[in-house]
């Protein structure tokens, strides 16, 4: 038996895969003691811990500590002359015309940013050795000020970590029990602000993450779990507990990553390797492009970043996705110029949409879907509660007055705008990166994915839509499809040419050796280890880089030309042009995998039931431009492989609603996934 638990903002989900099929369960998330919710959902699903072969766990504990500012009091040690780098940041002001702009405050105030005399040059050569004797005073000060975690960020440590290591050793001698992280250990890239920010945020969450992982490990062990938990990372892989503890910030985006990874794995199984994945939740929608059944990874990640805020960079490998403030709870509002907007403000779970009747006075996307008949009132909130129509009508009345339009028109408008926002995000990951959506299938999951997917695919012109089985807990299932994975990136700028092939090969080999050592130390099994090579490359003289997958064959003067062609092609796709200019290698990127024995989706049982037997009734649904129709209702739970349903129709259960517009056909595959052919 393999079990995944996914701690989300509102619910903790569980998916259990056995020979006999899949079991799922949901329970409330229990901040700040998240492990309580995990134990509860395990109990609820009636799972015997000793029977579990793999227990995979995804948690929001890291992002939650960051966003709520409940991390450890952190002290920072920098090169002399550079303690203000963290506060100067990059000096940018995304909210260009707002002269009252407020710059984000640094996570470490100035008096806890201390400097040590030392210096390397950009080639890593020693200009001045660290004066370690200065540390005693700094550490005394940190202790007196109640510091709980220490971050070390010295210039050029990405080239040569010796000075950071020396400082770290001395700090450990002076203060053996403090949390301490050096920048080179978690980020091998240049740009001192980004690396400093990454190590500061890592140190800030380190004590909490350590405590959480230890507690989870202990409590699961005490209840009979025989294997060590595997921890979901933002890079679409899982880590050993030791691996996650050493690099806690790598858990920062684990939830969204697992959904995208699940989509890639499902695509591999059902022969759809090229996908645009869309996860619509309560507050946000997330989308990523999957090519050849692989997600793309970036280290260009920031928290609290949006069109008006520079945010805080974290250079950790994260699945490359676009997230927008558009989910079921997104609020519809009218601006001073009389225009209707949806989101990014969300009503969340509390007060929630107006129809929840929990004090919400704003119309949300969910309310609009309800108004148009797309959500079945009888199945509202899992069928546990009737929609509060008085509340919905009162909230609509305010918009009717402001806009001078009917409720139905406004509801249609809300859905169109919500869809336009999502289309924009879908284009950002596809068209804007040089991919044609017509070459991809749209796979949609999360609470709202199935409801919007067909309309989005029509506009995006993807030929196919896939709604995976158990789509509302798809992210948790995705965790069970992940392998152990650790990414290693290192900036090592050199020409990528036949003359430099030897040096390029050495750069890759060196990082591979380092990657192997670290991975084995963190408990990845040696017999299953495999590596992949990537490179961030650019034209000499340009800033922007393109990530290129390279085969794991040695570079030499003959082969390097082919690899250069890969770069030209990738650059042309992403930026529409190629140059006749020398190519530079900027970052060497090694991915270490250790394969886990995963169980594919089991086939769904066929009993020979007919489509008519799953027919529950009919209701009126507003399909906007496709008209208002009576739509047949089918029970998703009763559907069987091979069944074909033609719109206008709706397939639904307590957690999922698939809206099928007139003339569109939906068919269930052998595993229980629903496919829509969009042609015709």
């Amino acid at each position, binding site marked *: 038996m393999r079990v995944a638990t996914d701690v989300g903002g509102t619910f903790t989900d569980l998916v259990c895969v056995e020979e006999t099929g899949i079991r799922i369960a949901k329970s409330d998330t229990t901040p700040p003691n998240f492990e309580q919710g995990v134990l509860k959902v395990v109990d609820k699903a009636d799972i015997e811990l000793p029977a579990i072969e793999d227990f995979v766990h995804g948690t929001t504990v890291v992002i939650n500590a960051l966003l709520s500012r409940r991390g450890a009091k952190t002290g920072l040690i920098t090169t002399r*002359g*550079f303690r*203000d*780098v963290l*506060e*100067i940041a*990059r*000096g*940018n*002001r*995304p*909210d*260009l*015309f*707002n*002269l*009252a702009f407020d*710059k984000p405050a640094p996570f470490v*105030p*100035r*008096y806890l940013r201390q400097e040590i005399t030392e210096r390397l*040059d*950009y*080639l890593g050569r020693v*200009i001045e050795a660290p004066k370690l004797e200065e540390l005693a005073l700094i550490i005394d000060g940190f202790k007196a000020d109640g510091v709980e975690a220490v971050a070390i960020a010295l*210039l*050029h440590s990405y080239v040569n970590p010796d000075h950071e290591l020396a400082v770290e050793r001395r700090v450990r001698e002076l203060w053996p029990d403090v949390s301490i992280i050096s920048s080179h250990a978690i980020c091998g890239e*240049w*740009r*001192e*602000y*980004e690396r400093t920010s990454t190590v500061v945020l890592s140190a800030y969450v380190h004590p909490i993450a350590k405590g959480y992982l230890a507690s989870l490990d202990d409590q699961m062990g005490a209840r009979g779990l025989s294997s060590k938990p595997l921890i979901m990372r933002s890079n679409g892989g899982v880590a050993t507990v030791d691996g996650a503890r050493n690099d806690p910030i790598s858990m920062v985006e684990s939830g969204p990553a697992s959904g995208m990874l699940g989509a890639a794995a499902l695509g591999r199984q059902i022969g759809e390797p090229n996908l645009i994945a869309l996860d619509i939740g309560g507050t946000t929608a997330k989308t990523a492009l999957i090519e050849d059944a692989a997600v793309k990874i970036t280290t260009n990640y920031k928290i609290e970043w949006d069109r*008006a805020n520079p945010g805080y960079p974290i250079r950790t490998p994260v699945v490359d996705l676009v997230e927008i403030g558009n989910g079921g709870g997104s609020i519809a509002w009218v*601006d*001073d*110029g*009389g*225009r*209707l*907007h949806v989101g990014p403000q969300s009503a969340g779970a509390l007060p929630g949409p107006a129809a929840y009747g929990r004090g919400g006075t704003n119309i949300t996307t969910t309310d609009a879907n309800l108004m148009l008949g797309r959500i079945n009132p009888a199945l509202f909130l899992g069928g546990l509660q009737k929609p509060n129509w008085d509340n919905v009508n009162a909230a609509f009345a305010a918009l009717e007055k402001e806009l001078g339009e009917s409720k139905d028109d406004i509801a249609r*408008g809300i859905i*169109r*705008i919500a*869809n*336009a*926002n999502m289309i*924009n995000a879908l*284009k950002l990951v596809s*068209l*804007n990166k040089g991919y044609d959506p017509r070459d991809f299938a749209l796979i949609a999951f999360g609470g709202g994915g199935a409801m919007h997917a067909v309309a989005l695919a029509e506009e995006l012109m993807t030929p196919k839509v896939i709604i995976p089985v158990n789509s509302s807990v798809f992210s948790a299932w995705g965790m069970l499809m992940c392998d152990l994975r650790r990414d290693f990136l290192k900036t090592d*700028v050199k020409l990528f040419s036949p003359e430099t092939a030897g040096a390029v090969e050495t750069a890759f080999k060196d990082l591979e050796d380092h990657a192997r050592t670290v991975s084995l130390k963190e408990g990845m099994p040696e017999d299953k280890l495999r590596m992949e090579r990537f490179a961030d490359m650019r034209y*000499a*003289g*340009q*800033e*922007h880089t393109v990530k290129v997958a390279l085969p794991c064959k040695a570079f030499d003067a003959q082969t390097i030309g082919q690899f250069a062609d890969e770069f030209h092609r990738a650059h042309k796709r992403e*930026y*529409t*042009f190629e*140059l006749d200019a020398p190519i530079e290698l900027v970052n060497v990127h090694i991915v270490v995998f250790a394969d886990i024995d995963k169980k594919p989706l089991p086939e769904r049982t066929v009993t020979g039931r007919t489509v008519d037997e799953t027919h529950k009734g009919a209701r009126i649904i507003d399909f906007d431009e496709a008209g208002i129709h009576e739509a047949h209702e089918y029970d998703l739970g009763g559907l069987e492989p091979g069944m074909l349903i033609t719109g206008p129709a709706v397939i639904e259960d307590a957690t999922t609603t698939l809206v099928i517009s007139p003339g569109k056909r939906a068919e269930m595959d052998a595993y229980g996934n629903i496919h829509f052919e969009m042609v015709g």
Partner: protein
Amino acid sequence: MAIGDEMFEAMARSSMSPIIYEVLDYSVGLTTKDGELIAQGNGTTVFLGMIDALVKEIIAKFGTADAIQDGDVFISNDPYFGTHLSDVAIAKPIFFEEQLVGFAVNKAHWVDVGGMVPGSFTPSSTEIYQEGLQIPTMKVMEGGRLLQSVLDLIAANIRLPRDSLGDFWAGVAANNVGAERLMKLYEKYGLDAMDAAMAGLLDYGEATIAAELKKLPKGVFEAEDWMDDDGHSDDPLRVCVKVEITEDRFTVDFTGSAPQALGPINHGRTALVAAVRTIFKALTNPQISSNGGCFRALEVICPERTIFTAERPAPVSTYWETMLYAEDLIWKAMSEHLPDRLTAGHLLSVCAFILSGSHPETGEDVILVTPLVGGWGAMANRDGLNGQFSVADGETYNIPVEIQEARYGVRIKQYAFHNEDGGEGKYRGGKGVYLDYEMLCDSASLGGSFGRFKFPPWGAAGGNTGSPNYVELIRKDTSSNVRELYGKPAQVKIQKGDIIRCVTATGGGWGNPHERAQADLENDIKNGFVTPEQAARYYHQEVAAE
């Protein structure tokens, strides 16, 4: 109704494609076929007004003879329709069903466009011909075919053609993305609906701003200030503004400001309009996506041939000093009347400099061009921001120390906030920085323009004036006690081992320093933002050092 809103969202975002980043400044935008701005994505504020001005120039020059065709790409760096020669604009006409429907445009700073000094700006020029290659508005692609001879001519006249031609192709690519997304909208909605939507969008911009305008204080507001000098004489130059706000008009009048100068602090009328648009947007609605309709209530008055309205062949390469004064004058006139939107005076100058020398490891020629961060003014309820770029910039990023050292072969000794006197107040001005470069190559040359060297940022509501921007040279071998300070260094020779200290301003304070809360001052001292000695001198408070 809903379709209009949906298109609005899509159009407003379709230009947001910052393909070029980590360059000094860039902007991308879409206009109607008549050159009305539909949407603009900005890296900087200075180009607000440049996109539409360029398209109108293209239409005037090529439109009548039916010479605008599908597949054309236009290029221009005419500074009198823009900023300075370093900013190169690329424009692509967009066709739907063989009809011209709009233009995609971008403008970006190239590191060098030729001229008398590497980096192409210097305080010492006296005419445009010294400032680089002039590219009048012309075609560089025709019907989809590259005019290679045009590119060859450009490449032969600039110092780092490889870098700049990469920027050129990135600009072409950015336009392609914007054009493609506009095309998709035309395919979905058709010609008539799109025309109507665009007109509606402009009206919406106008209506939104009109509503905001009604909320502004009414009356006549005036300000004057002094600019350091024109780089050729030591005389300060007076600039002034009269702002008149009524229920539906916002009129600014710069009459009385200094005449066109000998040195390159001038700029053309387009830059003046862009400056006024920027501050007007800040006063009304900073968040709305800019379009032509937003500025219909705006009127800009200024006589011909002032430093704000210079004409060919006046030099313009350090135009930002003057352009930012135009904004800052309105800012100063209005700050105490709009305390929730405006701060006291900020560093103002972009503080851009050019360091040209050779890389000590590779021997290659290198040109380091970068703007600097500094202090912003305090507000009525908080301290000023530390270490931010001037209002001219926005999505502009400083160049990391590690990248500067690797690429340019300099060594940076410190990048840190300073404690120079200035900016005291109930709320303090934000901190400027010391950025110290040690030169490792045998010889190098420094140029640049650090305005507000003699006239630091203004305080508001009784707050103190900030500290100045300047460059200090700390020579390795010197016996002199006289400090070597510059506001406008021009081709200053640097020897190996010399230290160039770039210093940016502390912003102006807000309110009487004596009213600063004791707890805030204690915090300042703990964090090293105010010394105990400064606390006693300016704040009249005794605070024990830790």
